[in-house]
């Protein structure tokens, strides 16, 4: 199942929220400690990717917000 998920993940049509949910699931599994060794490693690896993806999404979002704010500021100054 993890394989499938990881695959799904790499195909990357995921939203931030899906990524976060997956990340939480992984963290929970890792915390529970009931994964086989290689699955643990893969899960850990996936979690790293998810963290990275989420961070990027957030950065992107922040950037968009800033851009929007800037546009609005320009508009409200210029006209």
């Amino acid at each position, binding site marked *: 199942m993890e394989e499938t998920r990881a695959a799904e993940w790499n195909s990357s049509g995921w939203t*931030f929220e899906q990524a*976060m949910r997956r*990340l*939480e699931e992984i*963290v929970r599994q*890792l*915390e529970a*400690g009931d994964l086989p*060794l290689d699955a*643990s*490693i893969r899960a*850990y690896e996936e*979690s790293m990717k998810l*963290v990275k993806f*989420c*961070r990027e999404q*957030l950065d992107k*979002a*922040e950037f968009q*917000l800033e851009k929007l*704010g800037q546009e609005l500021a320009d508009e409200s100054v210029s006209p």
Partner: protein
Amino acid sequence: MNALTRAADAAEAVLSVTELNRRIKERLESDPRLLQCRVVGEISNFKHHPSGHMYFTLKDETSRIRAVMFSSRNRRLQFQPEDGMRVIAFGSVGVFERDGQYQLYVEDLEPDGLGALYVRYEQLRQQLAAEGLFAQERKRRLPRFPLRVGVVTSPTGAVIRDICTTIERRYPLARVVLAPAQVQGPDAAPTIVRALELLYGLEPKVDVIIVGRGGGSLEELWPFNEEMVVRAVARSPVPVVSAVGHETDVTLCDFAADVRAATPTAAAELVCPHQAELRAYLEQALARARKAAFVKVAWWRDRLSDLATRPVLRDPARIIAARRQLVDYIETRVREAQRRPIGLRRRTLAELERRLQRVELRGAIQARRRDLMRLEHQLQSLAERQVLLQSRKLDAMIGKLEALNPLAVLRRGYGVILDEDGQSVITSAQSLVPGKRIGIRMHDGTVEAEVKARGGDAGGRVEQLRLDL
């Protein structure tokens, strides 16, 4: 006189006081003129004794007499005698011997003249009052602007003249309708009633009626106390002003009327307004109406200007300004909130990362390594033990075998003779024929030998010795 003469005639004859008083008493009480006499006079020193007897003095301008009226007599009196009251007393003269006093024993007492009328007046007043004829709530208000004023009075007297003069002067709008009546004398009452009835039936109606006559004695005013007159006044369909006599004279007619005037002139004044006042009122009314109309307009103008100058109308930008503030406020909130979803998520992400970091995969690997090491050691020792065990078992076996070594006796010098091929043991000498090749096994080896002889020649010759072991 007779007694005195007799006393002079018989000087020596001395009487006791008692005898004298008795003689006086006999004399007085035998005079028919002093029995059943009527005396008019004014009451003074009136005392109503607790025993019920009345004691008083009757007097006139020059003389007085004591009087007593026993309770058996005075119980029936219609009025309460009092000092200063003129009365007619009916009774007889008698003597009270103990005091030597003569006095009038009153059998009946009535008010003198007017007094009697007064009593009738009072009795009728009480009766009619009890019927409610004089009740305050029956009183009507006078019409304010009468057109026709009915007057019941003598057509020739001053009363109608006074009334006409007054009304003409004050209020010429009103027409006076005179219903003539006799206002004194025993026949007056019916004429008054008839005059009233006339006015009551008149068409067009009169608006108000004045009933009046000038001042006079009680007897003169008496028709206006007559029951028929009083009742006629009381049933008037229009308000009645009573103006009978002077101010001090109060007739029952006054009680029955709606308004009482002191004089006919006063009645006329009560009945109609003064035209000067009316004209003044008209002016005033006009001025008031005008002022009120202007006030109304001004009031509306104030209200309008109050509304028109309300900030919201004068400065409509306020309508906008409040909303602008709202927009600003909401924009501020949006701007403040815009990063919140990101912030919240960053926190969640950071928390997940922290949790990830806390996950001890390395530790788990170490633990597994330790498990593995333990297994490895276990395996090693188990495998070694297995070999050791087998090797001990083998050693034990070897020990036993050594003890059971069938060749052990050979050490003590025994030898075993084997056949030529060393396979079978030769147990009988019979089979040992000379020349037969045999093997001899000693403890430390086997030699080949050849049988040389048998029997007695016990010593065989060993040709060859070879160690086979």
